[in-house]
């Protein structure tokens, strides 16, 4: 799994790490059960504060993306979020509403947004996921 960050970006570094991992999973470049680099390995590789990596891994664990096994490391669960259905639905709604609001202010039409959304769907493994 390739994780890259941009320290000059306004987005906090730990959020960049979280998104890089989530994105690798969504695109299928990282598989269930794969071990993430240790805190030290990743901190060294990215030349960032290990505290930042710890925070990112904690956030990923809260979101159910990874699981920590004592002494063995941090692994991708692949099971998706543990959150209750209602909460997941609300989060999805918030996410899309935000994107649509920004798209409106950038001057796009509903059709533009649908096209781009379809493109994003095609890029990730979400297209092959079935109802569970």
């Amino acid at each position, binding site marked *: 799994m390739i994780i890259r960050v941009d320290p000059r970006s*306004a987005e906090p*570094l730990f959020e960049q790490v979280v998104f890089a991992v989530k994105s690798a999973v969504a695109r299928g470049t990282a598989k269930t059960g794969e071990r993430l680099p240790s*805190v030290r390995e990743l*901190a060294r590789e990215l*030349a960032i*504060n290990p505290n*930042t990596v710890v925070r990112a891994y904690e956030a990923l664990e809260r979101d159910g993306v990874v699981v920590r096994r004592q002494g063995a490391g941090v692994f991708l669960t692949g099971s998706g979020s543990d959150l209750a259905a209602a909460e997941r639905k609300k989060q999805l709604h918030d996410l899309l509403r935000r994107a649509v609001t920004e798209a409106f202010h950038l001057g796009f039409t509903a059709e533009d947004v649908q096209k781009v959304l379809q493109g994003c769907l095609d890029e990730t493994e979400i297209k092959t996921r079935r109802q569970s």
Partner: protein
Amino acid sequence: MSKDVVVFDRVERWFGVHTVLRGLSVRVQPGTVYALLGRNGAGKTTALRILLGFLHPHEGSATVFGCDSRDLGPGERARIGYVGEDHRLYPTMSVGDAIAFEKDTRPAFRAAFVEKAIERCGLRRAQRIPRLSRGQRAQLSLILAVASDPELLICDDPALGLDAVMRREFLDALVDLLAETGCTVLFSSHFLGDVERIADRVGILHDGALLVDATLDDLKRRIVRCGWSPAAGETAPGGPNVLRVAPRRGGFDLTLLDPTPELFASLRAHGELAEAPTPTLEDLFLDLTGPERPGMLREPLDDLVSPGRAAGGAR
């Protein structure tokens, strides 16, 4: 007693008629990396020297591990590692001599760690100190400073005079140390790119007091820059959200803190608003401490210097 590893409490220090620190207050929490930034002469080195007990404050106090910095004994000193900007090492020694010297004077010296570290940096025991490059000297002083497993590492502009490659090697060594020991680090620096990588919290020292004391994430999230060209007859905006208004051709560059949608709406209604790319730490630093310009920020940002509030956001 406070759990903070380092506390500056309203420290004042002057040299003759020249006041260097004017009521400096800083707290550094355990296990965090605190970067003290400021232009040359802002008081960074004086602050660090007070902390180490090399200088005494004229007013206020500085404590390390809850102990007044004027009264640091061998017990407290053994818990502190220090890397100065000049990486001072005895010029008559070899690398091996310097290591042996530290080993004899520090009870908790980790010989195995040092062996591994010097090998990783490509240093050899037989090398004479004067023959080392600046970068190698910086690495050696960092290795020696952290060899006795300090709970607090103080670095005064450790990267000064190092080229980009050496700076990255120094940074790698620091990251390794943090991952291995979780020690607390207080460092001053001119290299804002390095700070953006490893600091949890940033203090911007200007004219002897802190202008900003906030987590890096908070700073970046809350400060927004934009360009604004007012319509005819409109004047520059004011108010608590407007940190700085710098005139430029045809309008102003605005630096805003926690701008509200209403503020943006009002700016759009009264002129043309141009979004600026997200500010880097360097942009923010220049905005806050750059050469004096009309509308330049003079007062500390109360909102960004209350450690309690800002700390709650990100930890």
